[in-house]
């Protein structure tokens, strides 16, 4: 699985960094930053889906 973050859609709700702190961080202004660009480690796949499902802007996609 790989994650895609659309930074243009992110407005800084910060749900992703709360739900999947190993996969996302936020920059100084609070906008999401994707930490893992390669395959998501298997043990983090559930967190990755959780982050995508909870983004109110639909800015995160998980691709199997």
């Amino acid at each position, binding site marked *: 699985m790989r994650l895609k973050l659309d930074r243009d859609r992110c407005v800084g709700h910060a749900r992703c*960094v709360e739900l999947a702190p190993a996969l996302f961080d936020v920059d*100084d202004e609070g906008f999401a930053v994707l930490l893992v660009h390669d395959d998501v480690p298997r043990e983090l796949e559930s967190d990755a889906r959780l982050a995508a499902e909870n983004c109110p802007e639909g800015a995160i996609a998980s691709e199997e």
Partner: protein
Amino acid sequence: MRRNEFDHNSPEARDHLAEYYAPGGSPHGVFRTDSWGGCVVAGDYATLRSVAGDPAGYRSGPGVLIPPIGHQRRLLPMESDGVEHQAFRRRLLAALSPKAVAHYEPAIEATVVDALNALEGDDDVDVYALAKIVPARATAVMLGIEPSPQAWQWVDTLVYGRLVPARRSEVLRAARGIYEFFEAVLRNWEPRRDSEGPARLIDLLVRPDAHGNRLSRDELLDHCFFLLIAGLENTAFAIRAVLWHLGTHVDDRSALLEDPQKVRPFLEECLRMYSPVHGLARTSQEDAVIAGEEVRRGDRVLLAFAGANRDETVFPDANHFDVQRRANPHVAFGSGAHRCLGSNLARLELRITASKLLELFPRYQVAPGQGWHPAGPLMATLGTRAAV
């Protein structure tokens, strides 16, 4: 209720929110209401997001409160658009990021503990005090002011008084009171040096921004005015909702006591089910058709957050409070470019209040017979303090 009578400010909406916005009920989808001079209501999730996601087509500058306060000033940074809005937000974003607000955790925790200690002892206590003290302290610390004893009175007058035409002069007096309060604050303002700790919001408003631009005196005061209102009222609603739910739903309280990891999803579910802000408006810049409803240039479109948060297509069994709800992309803090600037601070206040209450008073219960209300006294028993 008929759709053209929909009114997000009505006692029915405020005190019976679950019924008023029930999935499948009349005020769902997109429709026109005659209340408050009329507007188009965007009450489903997808439409709300598409309107909120087009800030150039649906602007905030003409005013987002229905009805407005009526004090003839903009609520900044909320009631601005485009590059001006971005520049206003950029001043404050970093100070309100998740990492920056975490700095205030000890101060907020101390406030919660002090407030709980003050309530302890009596059998029946009004925990609404907690919902008012916590945001008052957090807002004062973030802005860099001493809390004004009158602040809550002024803010309540604005928030409720604006709904009653007969209270107009009282509302304007309260607005003037807040402006005069901040004029005095700014006259005596001593900017904080970087070595003295993180800049307070007023420091950031007084300074030139990264491009060397300064706010005018009016813009500066308009920011202070709105940051005070936003910091107090909406957070108090949210905290009261958390306190009400925790004290009336023993099973959910037990679930959180068993597994404190569930506190965060619990708070998100509170925000979804008891959205503190039912709706904010935009003004359409063009004639358009949204979800089959004709919108004319100049029409107001109400983003009905409380309705969208009960959209069954996004939240299955939407009127059911589910501590375990997995997918919960609610829009209680809005959507798009105007996302609530204080959302990270509000979440911190909610989390500390809920966690400390459960940790210190695990048998906390709301006194019987108190149904849902967004504001007002909330009688409860704290119960025996947990053994350390």
